[in-house]
């Protein structure tokens, strides 16, 4: 089924392609199960792109103003085709809403997806190094260096966010192409696994929560990966953490646990109104810090307090930056 979808994407792209366009999609990398972003300028190279269960990277980040400048040639005048999963489409909507890119520049191709595999989960369960990972309809099969095959059910090894189908909702936006069966996708989103996870903030008393956060964030090395990959972080060179010469110094450069906690506090506080819960920060973290406990908490807060969810539409201004006369205050 995935192969069919991949062919449909290729077909659609060859139809709408015009000379001078750019395609951002995934392509195969040398290691098994790795997919990396591909930037394609020629029509013949479209066949190189892939779409399968390993495409975990969100490509929405490349539409931000600064990142775009790094990719695009100076005399670029075409449109940018972006292939994304429904969860990444939300991040693209948020970049539109934050006016990082004009909608006329982008043609969005949303692909029906039934879960993305977390490669680390497979690698942790197989002791020897992996030679190849292949995919069937319901199973992932990893082959190790001795030639032994390990089969996993897809549900066991996918990303944590895929267990909650509220991430797969399609945005209220009419300018995208949908590849796959849209009706079936919508039905799946409505019916299947909607888990209401309990976060440690609900269950633990404050002292234990502090202790737990202290333990987790003591591992942080402040590599800024979570900030750099976040589609909602777009202050680029004006970021508070890059300004050591401010009159009021918010954070010094020493990597201590206390500073790490303050770093994440300020970062999540800044990002909370734009966060769509895509989970990229957790995926990019080299130390596997469970950052979802923070952004899921903030997403829930924004929904409860303001009745607002980031990434639903392409033109909703976030509540912390906009105010209409006659609106409820809080």
């Amino acid at each position, binding site marked *: 089924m995935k192969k069919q979808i991949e062919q449909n994407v290729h077909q659609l792209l060859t139809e709408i392609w015009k000379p001078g366009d750019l395609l951002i999609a995934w392509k195969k990398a040398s290691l098994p199960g790795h997919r990396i972003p591909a930037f394609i300028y020629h029509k013949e190279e479209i066949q190189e792109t892939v779409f399968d269960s390993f495409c975990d990277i969100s490509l929405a980040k490349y539409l931000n103003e600064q990142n775009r400048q790094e990719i695009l040639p100076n005399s670029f005048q075409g449109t940018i085709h972006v292939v994304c999963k429904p969860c990444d489409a939300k991040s693209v909507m948020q970049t539109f809403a934050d006016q990082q890119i004009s909608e006329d520049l982008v043609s969005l191709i949303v692909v029906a997806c039934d879960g993305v595999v977390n490669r680390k989960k497979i690698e942790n369960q197989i002791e020897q190094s992996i030679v190849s990972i292949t995919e069937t309809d319901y199973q992932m099969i990893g082959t190790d260096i001795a030639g032994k095959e390990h089969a996993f059910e897809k549900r066991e090894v996918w990303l944590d966010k895929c267990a909650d189908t509220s991430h797969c909702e399609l945005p209220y936006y009419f300018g995208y192409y949908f590849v796959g069966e849209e009706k079936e996708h919508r039905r799946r989103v409505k019916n299947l696994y909607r888990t209401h996870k309990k976060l440690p903030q609900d269950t633990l008393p404050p002292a234990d929560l*502090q202790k737990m956060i202290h333990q987790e964030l003591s591992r942080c090395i402040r590599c800024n990966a979570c900030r750099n990959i976040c589609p909602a972080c777009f202050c680029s060179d004006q970021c508070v953490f890059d300004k050591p010469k401010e009159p009021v110094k918010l954070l010094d450069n020493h990597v201590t646990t206390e500073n790490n906690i303050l770093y994440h506090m300020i970062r*999540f506080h800044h990002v*909370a109104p734009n966060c769509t819960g895509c989970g990229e920060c957790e995926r990019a973290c080299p130390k596997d810090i469970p950052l979802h406990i923070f952004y899921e908490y*903030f997403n829930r807060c924004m929904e409860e307090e303001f009745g607002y969810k980031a990434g639903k539409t392409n033109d909703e201004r976030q509540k912390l930056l906009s105010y209409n006369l006659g609106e409820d205050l*809080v």
Partner: protein
Amino acid sequence: MANKELIYLFPCLAEQRKRLLQEIQKKYPFIQVVPITCAGRFNTSLALKLIHEGAKGVIVLGCEPGDCHYREGSVFSERRFLLTKHTLKAFGIEEDRFQAIWHKPSDFRKTMTEIDRFVKHQTEFDHKGGHHEKAN
């Protein structure tokens, strides 16, 4: 940066609050007053930093949303402060340590009772040995 003995007070200076501030400083010498131009311009990251580093509390004094000199300042800050409280909660810190007091500058007594209540709450909390205990 933060002094653990102090409560930090950020009053908006767009309206007249001179007498109020004098009264506060006379009554509570451990309140550090840092004037700002409007409550809407208050950088909430600063409050997070101060509280995280162990200050007793942070108060922001602002005009009621709607009475703001700059029209929308306190509306935005009210929403932002709500988020700040949630940030503290998410990291296991007592959210009561940060408070915004919206008042009419002429309403002298009401403001003082609010500040009294805040100071009382914070000092009582200290006796229990609440916040300065950090996890090791």
